[in-house]
């Protein structure tokens, strides 16, 4: 079930109503049942996988806590269990295909038949959200191992893993924050409810009106990578940068909004990532829950930054490559991760050089960084780097990625016209203008109202009926801008 589907628009109000009507003690059970229903509405049998993994991790958490002298063994068992489950469902076919490719390339040299060594693909269907809940389980058992108190109530633990607003594509929750919210009796707060509703509507707009309208442009652009003109290649790459942001942050907004309406506060995943002034800054703003997970459970255990420079850089590269591979079982994700890892190493080296050198050049650069021009230049440079990274991320093959990059940086023609029709077909510009207006109202509306004369201020401060009208108008606008066919969420594939 997609958050942007009509099914969800029927499912969620029903759950919401039942949730607030039920006494507190039944609410978590209701949420758990609803979450399993939400999950199993796709492929029912994968509900069993989620159930079994939940049960095992619950038992492992308890075992780690109870048998402290064997805790390390239990922890390793848990990590192996979770990672092997993820590996089986996500990487089996990737490993087989890579192996077969390697066999195909060496078989003429070894003079053996390719067919004798190559393995058949298993065509394992990836369970939705497995990458997210497996990371949550690992976080749980690691933290229990480190001394945090385990969750003793099985329903609460199951709900932590299955909670439908964050089940499929995060944010990756921390159980310490979530368990507190599950235990506290939640009171209906109209302010929270309204904030949640607005987040839900905002996410819906980002997904339906922005990301789904950009999707055909991206698809068309990357499908004709070899014939793209310079302008087309830039449009396709920029469209993907906007699409992936709107798609993923839209999903997160909808998840956070739904959770907030149920009285839960989920962590935010994005903080205006495209205004980042460095790659380090970008990773503090993009998919925050994943980057902080990678930092806490991979980069720091590897040694983090408290080691030699070479080791630190190696740790960064390993973390980012594995982070890339987490996104999908394909070499282009590995390249994307390595690209970002290299970028982060360069970024750190540059900072180190700037800090420790006292030449005229570094003096000038330091001064430049403190000016607005320097800020804008850093922002642009970071954005172009991220954009090039997105090309590797989106392209299905390396050849496709290189074709788009060739079009961007060494074009043969300005435009080959492959995107003209698809751009005309989708109301992308009006949708972005509407979103810009919405952001302006949200960010500066209150300040503007404050400066108005009393009567005008009173009129401009909407009461409940007026707010209902505004929300309805926002919803109608979103639906009006929706393209005829919806695209699946990009992060569902991960």
């Amino acid at each position, binding site marked *: 079930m997609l958050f942007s589907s009509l099914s969800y628009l*029927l499912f969620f109000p029903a759950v919401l109503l039942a949730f607030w009507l039920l006494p507190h003690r039944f609410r978590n059970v209701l949420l758990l049942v609803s979450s399993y229903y939400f999950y199993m*509405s796709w492929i029912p049998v994968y509900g069993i996988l989620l159930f079994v993994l939940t049960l095992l991790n619950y038992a492992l958490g308890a075992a780690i806590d109870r048998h402290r002298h064997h805790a390390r063994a239990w922890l390793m068992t848990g990590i192996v269990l979770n990672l092997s489950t993820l590996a089986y469902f996500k990487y089996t076919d990737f490993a087989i295909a890579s192996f077969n490719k390697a066999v195909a390339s060496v078989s003429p040299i070894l003079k053996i038949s390719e067919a004798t060594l190559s393995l058949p693909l298993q065509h394992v269907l990836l369970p939705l959200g497995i990458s997210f809940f497996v990371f949550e389980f690992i976080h749980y058992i690691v933290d229990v191992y480190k001394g945090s108190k385990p969750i003793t109530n099985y329903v609460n633990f199951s709900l932590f893993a299955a909670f439908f607003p964050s089940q499929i594509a995060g944010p990756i929750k921390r159980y310490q924050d979530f368990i507190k919210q599950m235990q506290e009796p939640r009171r209906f707060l109209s302010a929270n409810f309204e904030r949640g509703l607005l987040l839900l509507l905002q996410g819906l707009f980002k997904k339906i009106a922005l990301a789904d309208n950009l999707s055909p442009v991206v698809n068309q652009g990357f499908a004709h990578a070899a014939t793209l003109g310079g302008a087309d290649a830039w449009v396709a790459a920029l469209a993907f940068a906007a699409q992936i942001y709107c798609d993923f942050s839209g999903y997160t907004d909808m998840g956070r909004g739904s959770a907030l309406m149920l009285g839960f506060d989920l962590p935010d995943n994005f903080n205006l990532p495209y205004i980042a002034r460095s790659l380090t800054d970008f990773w503090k703003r993009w998919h925050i829950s994943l980057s902080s997970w990678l930092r806490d459970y991979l980069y720091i255990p590897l040694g983090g930054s408290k080691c030699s420079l070479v080791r630190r850089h190696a740790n960064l590269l390993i973390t980012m490559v594995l982070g890339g591979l987490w996104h999908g079982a394909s070499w282009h994700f590995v390249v994307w991760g390595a690209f970002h890892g290299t970028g982060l190493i360069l970024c750190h080296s540059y900072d180190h050089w700037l800090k420790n050198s006292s030449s005229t050049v570094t003096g000038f650069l330091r001064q430049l960084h403190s000016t607005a021009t320097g800020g804008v230049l850093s922002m642009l440079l970071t954005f172009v780097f991220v954009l090039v990274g997105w090309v590797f991320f989106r392209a299905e093959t390396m050849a496709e990625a290189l074709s788009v990059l060739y079009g961007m940086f060494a074009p043969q023609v300005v435009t080959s016209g492959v995107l003209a029709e698809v751009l005309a077909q989708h109301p992308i510009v*009006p949708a972005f203008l509407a979103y810009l207006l919405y952001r302006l109202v949200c960010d500066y509306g209150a300040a503007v109202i404050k400066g108005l004369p009393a009567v005008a201020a009173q009129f401009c401060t909407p009461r*409940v009926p007026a707010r209902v009208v505004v929300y309805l*108008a926002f919803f109608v606008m979103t639906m*009006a801008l929706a393209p005829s066919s919806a695209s699946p969420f990009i992060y569902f594939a991960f």
Partner: protein
Amino acid sequence: MAIETPPKQSDRARDLAQASDGIKAKSVGKSFALMQGLLYLGLSIVLLEAFFYFAQVGDSEHCMPDRKVGYKPFAGKRITQRQEGFGSYKLNSFGMQNDEITIAKPAGTYRIAVFGDSCVESIQVAREKNYVSQLADRLSRALGKPVQTLNFGVSNYSVAQDYLRYQTLAKQFKPDLVIQVYRVDEISKLLPTPCDSMLFVKPVFFPNPDGTLKFDDTCVAGFFRSKAGKYMLQYNWLRQNSRIWEILVGLRHSFTTEFDRLKASKSIFNFAEPNPSAPPLQAISSDQTRTNYTNCYWYMMDAQLKAFARECKADGARFMFLRTPTVSLGDHKLVKNYAETALLKTTAASIEAPVLDLDQALRSEGDTPDDGTKFSSKGHFTVRLHTWVADKLGAFIKEQDLLPSKSAAINASRSVVK
């Protein structure tokens, strides 16, 4: 122990006054909130309509109910179509997919009227790129004099509706040549399909034994008596003028469909997307059924085509058929109905109307499924196919000398002036 002293008379009066002020303030607050809500509602409607107008969304509705023909395009409405490619245009004041025209024919100008369904109407491509418009350019260049093409195509129109459109609208423009586009499987639109959709409401011409036609509008009258028909009539103004209305109707439709799907599903875990491998519904499913149906009902089609051609000729216009290809929505292969082609040619010969068979011409290029270069996802012509049709049709009209000679044209224009 604290002893409560009874409140004084003046305190009581003050409390009462305060309480009454509080109630009044509350009710003023409520009235203000309600008034503000109404104001915001009005403002939202105006702003959304303006936004949708500029964003070109919510204006795909293009037909209104008509008690004679069943339905017809709105006059002067701007239409934007985004489902198959992009098309945005304003219907002219006669409700035609044409630039504005005058009833009186400009001196020395040839007029060609083209009749047919959505493949003629061509809302999927820019107006200047559809074959009707392209034909005017080609013939004007080839003949060295202005040629006006008048697009009378309307979505899902049958031959009977084309004939009625000629009688009620096109006749007054005094066309020199009338082209009846007869696409493959046109016969499937001969009889009305009973359903709630206005685009399937059709009057029918039944042939009398003496060859004359009997007009039967039972289906049209029935539709206007039905709930769906009354709804169409009731909300016609909103359908024509409000983009918000169109979006709300679309939303209602989507929700109803979803509810129906959920109600019909056998499993509670049936939220998955509809089965994409399910074949799309088609009027007539097999080649053999199509042939049988054509043979059975051709007497009706024959009578309608002959009557239409005779009336055009009586009005001084030449008449021809353009046989255009159709693709099935499932596999995107060309639909076969050779029986229909043969019968059409027989009918055309009997009334001395030439036939340009572009179905055969396209089929001779290969019978492979279309890859989206010639036909859109819903089977309409792409710009490439429009250009191809315009080329072939232009050459055919010139070759067959279907436009009147120079002197005849001058005489015709003189008679208009008189």
